[in-house]
């Protein structure tokens, strides 16, 4: 136990640091003062009711929720199908396709954003919801493919075979055997896609128009002009929303496993 003390102390310090932003934002959002302060002065909900008077934030919240939901569904569908092909069949070029599926992760968001803007301008979908959606699906696919491939790598195909032998229709086999076994991987792919899309700034930055602005981007823009407790109350809403999905992710899949950490010790 003694040797853990220094490490434990540093670990505690780091944990406080990485969580400090939230530890100051939440209390600051309840301030009664007209300016940003920590520790906050007084207590009131005024900065929360103030959000309601700012249609641009409400609208961008809806855009973000809509975008993240559709992204999650489509990216999961596309990624899962591709992962099935990659895992089930051995074929020429599968290595290439696999690498390609994961490649958006290795290229800086900045470049993805700029190139998408250039291309979307040419084909006339820059600034539209469709353009934004396509880019968000692109950056979510790698996570889904990786998660589902991991799920499939330990998948026991003899269970499917057993289903066939007992006379089940291929769709029934898929629905009753394959899907339930892969559900944790697929669901966590979906939640992760949702979070990726919901929190994205760098790619969206190049692709939004005033009427398709997402919430993080609306906060980003507002923050560059003004710093008041309104940012805190809106941020608190986003933190709460994200937390719901993080807890879901932890329950469904486990964060440790999600990030590739060994979970044998549990």
């Amino acid at each position, binding site marked *: 136990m003694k040797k853990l003390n220094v490490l434990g102390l540093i670990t505690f310090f780091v944990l406080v640091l990485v969580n400090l932003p939230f530890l*100051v934002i939440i209390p600051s959002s309840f301030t009664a003062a007209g300016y940003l302060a920590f520790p906050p002065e007084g207590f009131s909900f005024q900065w929360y009711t103030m959000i309601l008077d700012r249609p641009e934030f409400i609208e961008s919240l809806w855009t973000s929720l809509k975008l993240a939901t559709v992204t999650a569904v489509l990216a999961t569908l596309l990624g899962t199908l591709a992962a099935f092909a990659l895992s089930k069949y051995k074929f020429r070029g599968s290595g290439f396709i696999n690498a390609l599926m994961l490649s958006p992760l290795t290229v800086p968001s900045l470049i993805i954003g700029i190139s998408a803007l250039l291309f979307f301008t040419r084909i006339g979908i820059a600034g539209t919801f469709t353009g934004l959606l396509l880019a968000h699906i692109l950056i979510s696919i790698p996570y889904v493919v990786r998660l589902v491939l991991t799920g499939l790598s330990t998948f026991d195909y003899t269970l499917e075979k057993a289903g066939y032998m007992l006379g089940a229709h291929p769709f029934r086999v898929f629905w009753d055997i394959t899907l339930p076994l892969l559900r944790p991987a697929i669901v966590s792919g979906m939640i992760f896609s949702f979070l990726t899309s919901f929190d994205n700034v760098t790619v969206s*930055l190049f692709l939004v128009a005033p009427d398709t602005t997402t919430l993080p981007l609306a906060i980003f823009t507002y923050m560059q002009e003004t710093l008041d407790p309104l940012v805190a109350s809106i941020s608190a809403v986003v933190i709460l929303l*994200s937390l719901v999905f993080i807890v879901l992710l932890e329950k469904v899949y486990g964060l440790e496993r999600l990030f590739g*950490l060994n979970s044998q010790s549990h």
Partner: protein
Amino acid sequence: MNKRLSITLLTAPAMIVLLGVFILPMLLMLLLSFQDENQAFTLQNYALFVQDSFYVEILWRTIRVSLWTVLATLLLGFPVAMYMAQATGKMRGIVTMLILAPHLISVVIRNFGWVVVLGEKGWINETLMKLGLIEQPLRLLYNELGVVIGLTDSFIAYMVLAIATSLYAIDPSLSKAASILGASRMRTFFTVTLPLCLPGMIAGTTLVFSLSMSAFVTPALMGGTSVKVMPVIAYEQIMATLNWPLGAALAFLLLGSTILLVTLYTWLIETKRYKEVFAS
């Protein structure tokens, strides 16, 4: 169903998105970076970089800030990974959760939290002034220090993950063997643990470096107008000046220099390691 048809049907939807939204646009961007305003081929967007010390200074600043971030995440992240490797069950789960969860919440919001902490009227300055330790507020924000703090917070999880993964993989009996053979704890750490988790450290440092080099949001929010880095300049060329060819070239120059530096770094470490192995 025939195998070829199945493969095509299953991969086609994702491939269309990848080719259409990623590969094709990137090629277009590369092409554009070699064009002048009349769409003729030119190297001027890249040459400008060699001629104009303004851009060289910005690239150097980007590299400098990224290196400081790598150092900070390594120094703070290594002990955390060590702690996680030594902790058991529940404790390890709690630490993992507390280090990873913030990473899944918008970087804009985390940066905002730091602005509240570090600002001129922020928590730190107010506290230090009240305690009478300083008379003037410290400048912790809108300079390179602010950017490094923001980036360290953003990317420390990657460093911890990379190192922890390689620490978990080390067979505990190795350290036991070392201590049975009479090695001190320090010696065991430096001759057994550290070399074995070097791959994790290399992975972590290269990852954090690459991420810091291309980070846009944190430098924009915590660096202010005076600490411009390459991504911010590229963004301005695209969105404000509307000089798309130059913006594209700057982005590719950034990517190229990042790849070059990372390759050089891994090459240096690898050769040094082999030398050590063969020397002993």
